[in-house]
């Protein structure tokens, strides 16, 4: 019996080792372990053994069975693994081809610059306000303390629809509307299209974009103006950015200033973009003129505030080294694709 079992074991293991594929293995399994398999038959004949022989033979038979099973499994794993490898090899593709495309869109460069700037202000608690582009003369000039005879009101400078209605030349009217309709504190920015009667060339356009901002509260100081806008410049152009405030004049602010920031291209060393000065002009700003506050029914003895404004198109052109403003409005897809 023992010899018989050992013989079966050796035979089976040898066959398994020689099997060529999973089908062979199945046949081997059935031949030994199937219902009519050699080992099964032997196990069934155990009944004829003596009570002493039976446990020994049973143990041995089980050992043989386990050996064969594990050999089968090992060999089967081997074949499956090889099959998988072969399948993967045959499924290999040219990964440099672009057989399908999903289109990729592009925001306009102006919008990208605008978004960077608005994100900074929103993180500082400002809100965004928009208003009409066809606007009352009153909101665009009168309430902003622009003298009635000022040349910016001339038909050579400003587009008019009627005597009282114009295309806004700045987004300041949005602030006037905000001040007239909301109570301080006010912290807002107003981006949008503005219009001035400039012929189209590389740096001028009759339509362009501005972002203006306004803060009104009790106790707002000129140092707040400087601190806030300096912070914005550092967020925009990096923490090593320096700002310089130069006195200037605007009708709606007093005192007024222009803010320059270290040129973000050359970091202040002087280059073509900053015309060698190391600085670029970023925005105009100032403390809101008391006449403007009064025009909006805000008491200048109680409240103070600051306002600022910047040309977004110019900032986008600087940021992306765009050499000609006309590219911004031509909408050539080859140009837009870069952004």
């Amino acid at each position, binding site marked *: 019996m023992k010899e018989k079992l050992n013989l079966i074991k050796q035979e089976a293991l040898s066959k398994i080792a020689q099997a060529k594929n999973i089908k062979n293995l199945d046949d081997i399994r059935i031949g030994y372990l199937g219902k009519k398999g050699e080992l099964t038959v032997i196990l069934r004949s155990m009944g004829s053994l003596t009570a002493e022989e039976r446990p020994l033979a049973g143990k041995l038979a089980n050992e043989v069975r386990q050996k064969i099973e594990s050999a089968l499994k090992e060999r089967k794993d081997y074949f499956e693994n090889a099959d998988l490898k072969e399948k993967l090899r045959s499924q290999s593709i040219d990964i440099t081809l672009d057989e399908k495309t999903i289109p990729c869109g592009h925001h306009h460069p102006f919008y990208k610059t605008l978004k960077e700037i608005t994100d900074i202000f929103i993180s500082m608690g400002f809100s*965004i306000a928009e208003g009409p582009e*066809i606007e009352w003369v009153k909101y665009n000039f009168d309430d902003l303390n622009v003298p009635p005879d000022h040349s910016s009101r001339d038909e050579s400078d400003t*587009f008019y629809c009627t005597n009282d209605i114009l295309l806004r030349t700045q987004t300041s009217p949005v602030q006037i509307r905000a001040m007239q309709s909301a109570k301080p504190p006010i912290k807002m920015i107003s981006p949008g299209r503005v219009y001035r009667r400039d012929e189209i060339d590389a740096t001028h356009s009759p339509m362009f974009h501005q972002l203006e901002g306004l803060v009104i509260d009790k106790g707002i100081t*000129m*140092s707040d103006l400087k*601190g806030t806008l300096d912070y914005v410049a550092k967020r925009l152009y990096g923490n090593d950015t320096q700002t310089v405030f130069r*006195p200037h004049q605007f009708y709606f602010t007093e005192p007024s200033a222009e803010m320059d920031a270290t040129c973000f291209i050359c970091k202040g060393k002087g280059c073509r973009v900053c015309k060698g000065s190391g600085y670029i002009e970023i925005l105009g700003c100032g403390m809101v003129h008391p006449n403007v506050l009064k025009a909006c029914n805000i008491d200048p003895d109680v409240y103070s505030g600051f306002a600022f404004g910047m040309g977004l198109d110019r900032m986008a052109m600087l940021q992306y080294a765009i050499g000609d403003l006309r590219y911004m409005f031509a909408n*050539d897809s080859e140009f837009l694709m870069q952004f």
Partner: protein
Amino acid sequence: MITPVSWLKDYVDIPDNIKAFADNMTLSGTKVESVEYRAANITGIITAKVTAKTKHADYEKLWIIKVNDTKQESTVVTAAQNVNVGDIVPFATIGAVIASGQKINTVNFGGITSEGMLCSAAELGINSSVVPKFSQEGIFILPQDTPVGVDIIKALALDDYIIDFELTNNRQDCNSILGIAYEASATYGKKFDFPMYEFDNESQDINKYLSVEVKNFELCPRYTAKMVEIIRIEPSPLWMQTRLMAAGVRPINNVVDVSNFVMIETGQPLHTFDYDKLEGGKIIVENANDKDNITTLDHVERNLDKSMLMINDAAKHAAIAGVMGGGTTDIDENTKLVVIESANFNKNSIRATAKKLGLRTESSSHFEKGISVNLTKYAADRAASLLVEIGAAKYINGVIDVYKQIPPKEHLSVNTNWFNKFAGIKLSVDHISELLYRLGFEPKPNGDDISVTVPRFRNDIKIKEDLAEEIIRMYGYDNIPLTLMDSSNYISEPNRIYEAKQNIKNILVGMGGFEILTYSFVGPQAIDRLAFNENDKRRTPVKIINPLGEEYSVMRTSMLAGMLDTLALNYNRKNKSQLMFELANIYLPESSKDKLPLQQTNLVIGKYNSDYYEMKAVINALLAYIKTENVDYVRSDENFLHPGRSADIYMNNIKIGYVGQIHPLLAKTYDITDETIVAEINADILTEKMINTKIKAKAVAKYPPSERDLALIIDDDILAAAVQEKIIEYGGKDIISCKVFDVYKSPSLGEGKKSLAFNLVFRSDEKTLTDEQVDEYINDIIRNLEAANIAKLRF
């Protein structure tokens, strides 16, 4: 303000480091545009006298010139035709360098060796438009009082800087050498004392000659006249000529030069009349009559009207006030008596007149910015004294000074506590007073208050905030600390509409959209081409009164014009077809609630080499994101769209836009392919929907769906949506979707028929549907469709 530093130095100490000076001026409020060194490059050029002039034997146009520089005589060959014996000229010796950087060597001209070169103005770095007329072309013939044998840099005072200051509107007082000197002095901590030119005026000899009558004080608040007796009209002395040229003004003769000189120095434009040409010894300041005319100094006849202020004599118009003189009263070489007019004219009147006449002069551009009424006599005195100083004239005693009133000095008060709180700094009363004093204010402290008298020429200082700016700029804007406001904690309401608009853009970019930017104004033909129906409000755009040109003259009523221009440009440049979009405003003539034109945000999308269904897919994806329900596509009657391939888009039965292929005739006008698809949607409705949509999540369905496909034969002109609607209606309570997945046309279906294959999905919330139940639903649908004669089952 073009400012020669040498001129400034007559009145104020300027540090040697001009760059530092320029920076300090900028920081104190007088912005420097540019700094230019006048003698850049020039070396080895000296003044020399022409002693002989002969024609070159072989070359018709060349002259052989002998020049003497007091040390030696040299021979030069020149092609210039304006050199004569006795002239003093700039002579570039061998080895000299001219303004362009070119080095001068000996040159042989047909056997004659030229030992140097005579220089033109440009070769000295001087713009030829500012040198005397006879030197404009050819060699710069120097004034006769130029010393010979000296370096040209010394002779023409070229060792000098020109600073161009950019002035703000409110500081016309700085449009003068004295104004800049005042600022420079204050910048360096010193009060500026204006030089005084007044002299004894006790006897009023002038009254024997002249009378002045001002008839319109509103347009001429002050008219000052002085007179001088001319000794000789001749070129000005060298120093005055060089000054004027440095400031960018061409020297003419001593009388004209002095009036220009005084305008540059004081900011007050002057005019001079030949007294003997003034009829009746009279000056009358009054408005012109309509249809009058005058021939101005530039020999142009000008038509006048009654809005224009004139300087008249007893019989005629002598000058257009503040703009230009008339030819008949001009100074000439025989002039014996000169009237110097130094007047103040209303800035708006001058601006309007100059504009109407298309005649903008140095004088008018000074006046239109507004000049202090206090300047007239000061400038007249300065002019008379200069004319005497340079030997051009003798005084005629007295002055005529006509005005109704000269406004008193302005008095203001500033509180130190208020100021410190406003600026965010802490300055003492004394410190503030000192800063104001530097600028010529007269501060009188009284406790925390400082009462301040404003200098006469500072028209711009009217309120305490104006004073605050003066104090702060003298203290230094840069010395103000950087602080973040207390209200940095205050957070404003976010603008949800704005955010929603950005989201729409993001979605379109995500779908491959290129964001474009087009002008808000278009040409009327761009609107006409869209052929809006008779009563369509888009047909009558808001017009601009003063457009840049016809093509920018009306506000767009549809975003389509800009989109079509963009598509056409890209199509013609053979760019790959891309989905393009713009989110911006259209402007409709009907008034919004505050009576302005209605300004509505629209989304326009376009693509060429596309088809209707691609664009519809884009819109459906967008609308799905927005969570719109009840969207219907209904055949559109927009005339600019292909009638069979376009739809109006409805949301909850409200029209929100259109989508479609552009009409072939429109495609032709834009020179673009017929396969161009556009859509335009009212984005205000979309954003409104976006911010108001509240999502309430449903549990995931418990029971599996059952799908069935259904092929139907229908009339060709019945739209799929109509059949879909009916299928849903007849489909029972468990139908959850019905989509077309195939359209088939074949003659075998019968005349005018098509087959639509629908995929139907059923699902119950209560149980798993059995096949029998679903079969029953399908049978109901078919029975009802057939009964209603809508469709037949296709076998």
